[in-house]
């Protein structure tokens, strides 16, 4: 028997390395141990995609200009081969990329770090009062409808703000009257609102804002209407009529019509992704003082989209730890070794209950369909492939039905790993044929149990904070898993399985 000594020394080395690296990071770079000890920083990334037409290219993107409630601490553009400059056109701040010649698909990034202001102060008066609004022309019969709507609204309001509120209410009810319907048929609600306000002689403009949510990709812009009350601009939500900017909304574009102009390219589009970083006050202070780069090592330098992925990727070791513990020490039987971790990752996106329900529904439907497939006597690969397609169908249907019923989680079902689901169904179905429904129930609920346990661990704010900000701590997870690989004691389940041994004869 070889000595176990080197093994344990190796494990100790892993733990020591992990702890000391983490301590170094904490002491030198000021990364705090707990998620509570820091200020959030939103890293917002606008990504512009377009196809260049082999001619001079000029891309102009509207960028935030002192967005109310936020402080921009750094801005940078990633644009290989392009020149970048920030210009001000008629009081409007824009980022401009240019290149003499470009061809084919191009991607440009604009990144900005914003910090929510702790004490949102009243926005300063934005210079001079705006010019009188332009006159508005309507086609008939919309003209009559607009006049009628405006007349009624003006009767019930006294100030520009109250007029805006009444108009929003009139246009947003569940069953708008004839006038409102007629107008809404011609254009979007924000545009109609702006025109009605202009017609009433109230200066109004449209703004778009980004709702800041952690690790979101392709976040859509939300349109707001701003009304000038003679002193300052007031922001209104065009659906609820609420005044003021909602918390966590970053006003991206204010008072301009175009978000993105591309000359010399086609099929351009812009998408936004964002990430909530927690940055210690120290690092924040440093970057506010003019240094735009974050500390040298760590994952902060990656593009946000990748950082979001790493955040999930770095949770997987914890899930693996849970699986190892549940299988080796507890002795839970699962279908497929690491399937529960992937399901748990999906739960992170869908939240727990909707996740469990959809998972159970998809697996049950899948087992029924698989029952039919098994009658066809297909070869394994064809059977799995067919199953994958069916699983995708089912998730699409559930998504659509969920959306119709107004259940938001419907959209996030696509996070479920389809291939893994198909394999799970196949395994459980074989198990059903070979060992009966009882065993399927045991392994199915075992998998679910492990998935929920892994979910609870991975969702823990401290765990996710430590795993992302202190990647070296995973060495300790690794050591724990290696240690468990040596566990030769009884499993918890065996204490039950061998319970019959206690009756002595």
């Amino acid at each position, binding site marked *: 028997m070889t000595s176990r000594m080197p093994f344990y020394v190796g494990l100790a080395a892993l733990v020591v390395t992990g702890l000391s690296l983490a301590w170094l990071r904490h002491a030198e770079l000021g990364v705090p141990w707990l998620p509570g000890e820091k200020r959030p920083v939103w890293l917002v990334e606008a990504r512009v995609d377009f196809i260049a037409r082999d001619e001079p290219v000029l891309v102009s993107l509207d960028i935030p200009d002192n967005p109310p409630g936020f402080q921009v601490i750094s801005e940078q553009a990633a644009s290989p081969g392009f020149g970048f400059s920030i210009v001000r056109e008629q009081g409007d701040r824009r980022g401009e990329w240019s290149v003499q010649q470009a061809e084919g698909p191009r991607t440009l990034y604009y990144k900005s770090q914003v910090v929510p202001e702790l004490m949102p102060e009243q926005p300063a008066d934005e210079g001079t009062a705006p010019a009188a609004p332009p006159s508005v022309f309507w086609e008939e019969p919309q003209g009559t409808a607009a006049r009628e709507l405006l007349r009624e609204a003006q009767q019930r309001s006294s100030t520009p703000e109250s007029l805006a509120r009444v108009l929003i209410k009139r246009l947003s009810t569940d069953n708008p009257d004839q006038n409102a319907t007629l107008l809404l048929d011609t254009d979007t609600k924000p545009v109609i609102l702006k025109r009605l306000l202009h017609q009433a002689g109230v200066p109004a403009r449209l703004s778009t804002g980004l709702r800041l949510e952690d690790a979101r990709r392709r976040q859509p812009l939300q349109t707001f209407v701003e009304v000038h009350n003679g002193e300052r601009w007031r922001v209104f939500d065009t659906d609820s009529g609420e005044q003021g900017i909602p918390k966590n909304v970053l006003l991206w574009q204010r008072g301009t019509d175009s978000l993105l102009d591309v000359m010399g390219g086609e099929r351009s589009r812009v998408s936004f992704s964002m990430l909530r970083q927690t940055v210690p006050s120290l690092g924040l202070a440093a970057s506010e003082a003019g240094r735009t780069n974050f500390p040298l090592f760590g994952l902060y330098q990656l593009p946000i989209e990748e950082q979001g992925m790493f955040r999930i990727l770095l949770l997987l070791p914890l899930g693996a730890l849970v699986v190892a513990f549940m299988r*080796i020490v507890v*002795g839970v039987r699962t279908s497929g070794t690491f399937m529960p971790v992937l399901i748990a990752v999906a739960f992170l996106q869908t939240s727990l209950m909707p996740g469990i329900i959809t998972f159970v529904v998809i697996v049950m439907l899948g087992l029924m369909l698989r029952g039919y497939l098994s009658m066809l*006597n297909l*070869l*394994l690969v064809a059977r799995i492939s067919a199953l994958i397609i069916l699983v995708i169908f089912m998730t699409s249907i559930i998504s659509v039905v969920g959306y119709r019923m107004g259940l938001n989680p419907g959209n996030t079902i696509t996070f479920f790993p389809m291939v893994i689901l198909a394999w799970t169904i196949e395994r459980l179905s074989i198990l059903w044929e*070979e*060992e009966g429904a009882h065993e399927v129930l045991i392994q199915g609920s075992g998998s679910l149990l492990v998935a929920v346990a892994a979910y609870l661990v991975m969702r823990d704010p401290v765990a996710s904070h430590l795993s992302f900000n202190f990647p070296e701590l995973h060495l300790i997870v690794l050591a724990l898993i290696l240690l468990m*690989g*040596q*566990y*030769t*004691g*009884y*499993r918890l389940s*065996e*204490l*039950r*399985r*061998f*319970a*019959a*041994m*206690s*009756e002595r*004869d």
Partner: protein
Amino acid sequence: MWIAPRALQQQGMLGMNRRNIDYISRYNNRRRYPLVDNKLETKLLAEDYGIATPRLRQVVRTQHEIRQAARQLAAMDSFAIKPARGSGGKGILVITRQEQGRFIKASGQALDPVDIERDLSNILAGLYSLSGLPDVAIIEDVIRMAPQFTGYSYQGVPDVRIILFKGYPVMAMMRLSTEHSDGKANLHKGAVGVGLDIASGRCLKAVQFNRRLYRHPDTGRHLHDLEIPGWRQLLLRAARCFEATGLGYIGADLVVDAERGALLLELNARPGLAIQVANGFGLLPRLRHLEALRRAHLSPEERVDYAISTFDRQ
């Protein structure tokens, strides 16, 4: 409902983790697994080492051989068809006699030659093999159950599972199929496990679903006077599997044929742990005893004699 880990330790129970780490991965070389995962290979290997197995009649490897094979089967009174890589008794078809060109199964059901051909075709397509790999079908003589065993089993022939450690038989159990287990010999499906004394081949204890019982649930026959005829010969044939496979920790499944005595059915490189419950004591003391042996016995005969004299009922 629960038992303390200390109590399990006192009885020397081997747990799953210890079995995997200390025995299977230490004593079983992965490269030799194919020898036991494929019944045909096991069989050919066993023949080379003088271990009797049910007589091989035919091997069907390709689809076009099926027609020919079916014609030859028509000339045989009884036979068993098995998938070489099947596990847990799946896909096994046992024909006991023929009546007017129809094949009669052990359960009394009659099959047409077409049914036999379809079954062979399913086996070749991998329907019963692990992960659906293409397989071959082997056709063997049917086992004639030794008369001593009538009434001990509901359908199916009872088989003897022997745990071999470094070639020494360390624990034995007979598995009796029941109505609940659907004629199968799998303990978790409800077959009765009868722990056997290594020294004598006599019943020590019988369990079904981990509960002790004294009579066969279907036939009502008393289990405590169960005794395996030709016990030493059976142990000897099992013990030779160590030389044949080179695997240190295996389970050998044998049956007792009325005419030919103990025959090897299959080998298992990851034998289960339920055998300990059927015997009423754990494997660990015996395994440790053998691990501590200064000089291992070289011949199967010596090992069997050593086991018989050492592992007497404690």
